[in-house]
């Protein structure tokens, strides 16, 4: 009789379990759980990468995921070592490290900005996997908000970085021709806008979570569906429903943020409002105009293709919106009609612009891969030029950031070279070094 072999889960299952456990811990309260969660998330990507078809490419690519985990461990250690009633620097360390982790996962730091352009390490789910990271980033920022919202300079720096990220994500989503890549960047934008919502304390935490879940959840569903037949884009009705869903959810996420951001930054309020309104409008445009109906070649729906789920999912995606807005309106100060309409304007203008652009494109004219449309009218030419400009701006900004980051790393490594040259391994050098330090030990106190 053959003995039963112990079940050995494959890398896909193991990585999935690690990822799920990581998310559960990130959503748990406390810095230790967050650090452990980020570590498990990094381990999941490493696990997938080491078992991928090209580990030499994927292992270095996803190595940076340990940095957010390390930042959270540092925040946890800072909190554990801090004396009771710790002074400012302790709180700044804790807040800064926690925010670093959230921002880096959210692609809001220049060190790991372009990961949403790259497919993940798992062959079957590769294009979907990077979408996990901005979600994790927002969860970190949201869960740890009590640790960083009280430190003014950390909070303001985070808000500025999130604003830049929202703009870059919108530009990239607009510039990318592939809908899957665009969706990944839309999720980054959702996370950044939701993070901004948290940073400006626009709504209670529960409301910001619900609004983010609606917007990001809708995009995540669309991204998942793109990998299994693009069901939500099949047929005019379904695609219209999803177009309305993503537009509404994104607009609902941006609305309270735009309402608060102008008031939050005093004299600079209008500037902040304009800076935040631009990405909101662009995201709305992408949500509407890029959601193009996919050609349906079948006369009858094939069972098991997820049509029913695609029809029900918008309800779930939108269910949180009224609840969140109700919570926000009950807990916040009354809002005037003028301000409310002004805050709604960017999403409305972007969405309407998208509708105007979208009308007249026949189903199938833009394929799922969104090849360059075969249109030569003026609108299409402008669209191509605008996309190219967006691509160039994104590349210019990221190249500039990369250069600055590389220079900083170079400066940090500068002292390491003489440190290495200090000792070449010869035994005689030990004695020379010893004499040098002894002289220093004698001379320095005398100088003091």
């Amino acid at each position, binding site marked *: 009789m053959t003995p039963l072999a112990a079940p050995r889960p494959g890398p896909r299952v193991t990585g999935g379990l690690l990822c799920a456990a990581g998310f559960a811990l990130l959503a748990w309260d406390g810095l230790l759980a967050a650090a452990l969660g980020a570590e498990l998330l990094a381990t999941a990507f490493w696990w997938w990468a080491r078992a991928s078809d090209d580990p030499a490419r994927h*292992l270095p690519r996803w190595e940076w995921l340990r940095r957010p985990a390390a930042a959270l461990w540092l925040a946890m250690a*800072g909190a554990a070592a801090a004396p009771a009633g710790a002074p400012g620097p302790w709180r700044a360390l804790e807040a800064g490290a926690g925010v670093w982790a959230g921002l880096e996962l959210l692609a809001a730091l220049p060190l790991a900005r372009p990961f949403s352009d790259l497919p993940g390490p798992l062959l079957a789910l590769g294009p979907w996997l990077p979408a996990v990271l901005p979600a994790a980033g927002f969860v970190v920022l949201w869960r740890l908000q009590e640790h960083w919202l009280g430190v003014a300079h950390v909070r303001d720096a985070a808000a500025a970085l999130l604003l830049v990220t929202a703009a870059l994500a919108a530009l990239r989503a607009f510039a990318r021709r592939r809908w899957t890549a665009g969706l990944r960047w839309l999720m980054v934008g959702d996370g950044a806008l939701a993070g901004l919502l948290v940073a400006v304390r626009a709504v209670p935490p529960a409301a910001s979570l619900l609004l983010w879940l609606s917007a990001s959840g809708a995009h995540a569903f669309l991204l998942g569906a793109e990998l299994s037949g693009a069901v939500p884009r099949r047929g005019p009705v379904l695609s219209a429903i999803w177009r309305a869903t993503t537009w509404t959810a994104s607009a609902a996420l941006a609305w309270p943020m735009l309402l608060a951001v102008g008031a939050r930054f005093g004299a600079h309020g209008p500037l902040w409002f304009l800076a935040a309104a631009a990405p909101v409008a662009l995201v709305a445009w992408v949500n509407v105009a890029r959601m193009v109906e996919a050609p349906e070649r079948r006369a009858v729906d094939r069972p098991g293709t997820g049509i029913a789920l695609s029809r029900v999912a918008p309800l779930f995606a939108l269910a949180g919106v009224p609840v969140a807005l109700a919570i926000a309106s009950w807990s916040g100060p009354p809002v005037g009609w003028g301000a409310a309409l002004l805050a709604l304007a960017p999403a409305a203008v972007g969405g309407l612009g998208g509708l105007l652009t979208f009308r007249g494109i026949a189903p199938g004219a833009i394929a799922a891969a969104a090849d360059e449309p075969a249109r030569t009218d003026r609108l299409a030419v402008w669209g191509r030029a605008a996309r190219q400009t967006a691509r160039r701006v994104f590349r210019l900004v990221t190249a500039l950031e990369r250069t600055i980051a590389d220079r900083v790393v170079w400066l940090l490594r500068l002292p390491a070279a003489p440190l290495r040259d200090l000792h070449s391994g010869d035994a005689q050098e030990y004695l020379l070094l010893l004499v040098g330090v002894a002289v220093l030990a004698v001379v320095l106190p005398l100088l003091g």
Partner: protein
Amino acid sequence: MNAAPALALFLTPALPAGLALAAGALLLRLEHRGRPLAALGPLAALVLLALALARAPLAGPALAPLAAGLVAAALARDRANLLHSECALKLLWVMGGALALSHAGLSLLTLATGVGPVGEQWGVLRLGLTPQPVWSAALPLALLAGLVMLGGAPFHFWVADLFQGARPSLAPLAVAALQAAGAAWIAWRLGGIAGFPEGATLARVVLATAAIAVFLASAGTLVSQRRPERRVGTLASLQAGLALSGLAATLAPGAGAHEAAWRLAPWAAHLALALTGAAALARFMPVPASPDAPGGALFRRHPASGLAGLFALFSLAGVPGTPGAQLWLDAARGLSAAGQTGALLALGAGWVAAFATVMQQVREAFGVASRTPPERAVPWEARAALWTAGAGLVALAVAWRIAGRP
């Protein structure tokens, strides 16, 4: 049977040193397989080193030269082994010189005060009869031997050299004994210095500066290191930073100087076990030539034994949940209470670098998924040594939790 007395044995370095000796003996058996008589000499050296380690917290200044001489002799005994000879030579150069300089400092203090016993020297210095430049030059010199033996920067390379060059049976006990002797030297030299506040302030500045140098240099070194043995060596140097931080914190105004010896006991107990496990593990860790290199034989054939060894490596780096993390946390709290912000930040940098390094090491150990079975087997003696160190550290953690830190 009541478990408390057994656990209480872990509160001093005696039982941990015994376990480290047992692990060393297992590795020695592996190195001298089929030649039991040839192992007797090295075994005797290991026993003496374990004794030195066990007595370190209570030892006087004589332990430092004895431990250094013993390690150099044990290394030089294997004449055919060039790496052993090189390590012995380097140790003699650096420790012989350091001890000579420190004795010069001690002699200067004796000349300046006119009394020999350390405790009495502080009382004489407090009278203000000795010129300040004399004692302020002599005191750092007197501490130099301890700093070198601890493996603090810029002398951190001897620790990594020893881990890379010496046999795995000898290296961990030798390093632990030398480091403990170095810490004991400093504790002895500073005994009673609370009676001379100016001297305590100077000593605190010197120790805190040395701790900063240790943490920053080790953090910088860890980033560029590739060989697992050298990484373990640098992690051991970071333990020197913890000892220096602890000693500096005890010199803060209001802290009793007697606490120095009190803190050395758990530090030395942990050092013995963590270094033993990590050094044995390092021998079975691959040095990956490329990111997609497969893992080592240990983790592919005996992952449980590998994890037991990893616990020791994790403890050395202060990964939360290990007994080593408690030492890091204590050092951080001590520095925080003493107001040593610079040393505290450096400690944070060292800890993050250590943590990142061991996580990188774990990934390299597991390597890329491979269906090809590993070529070489891992001997049971090595696995037993890993389990001994791992189990010892778990017992240490339990003992600290139940009985409280000594």
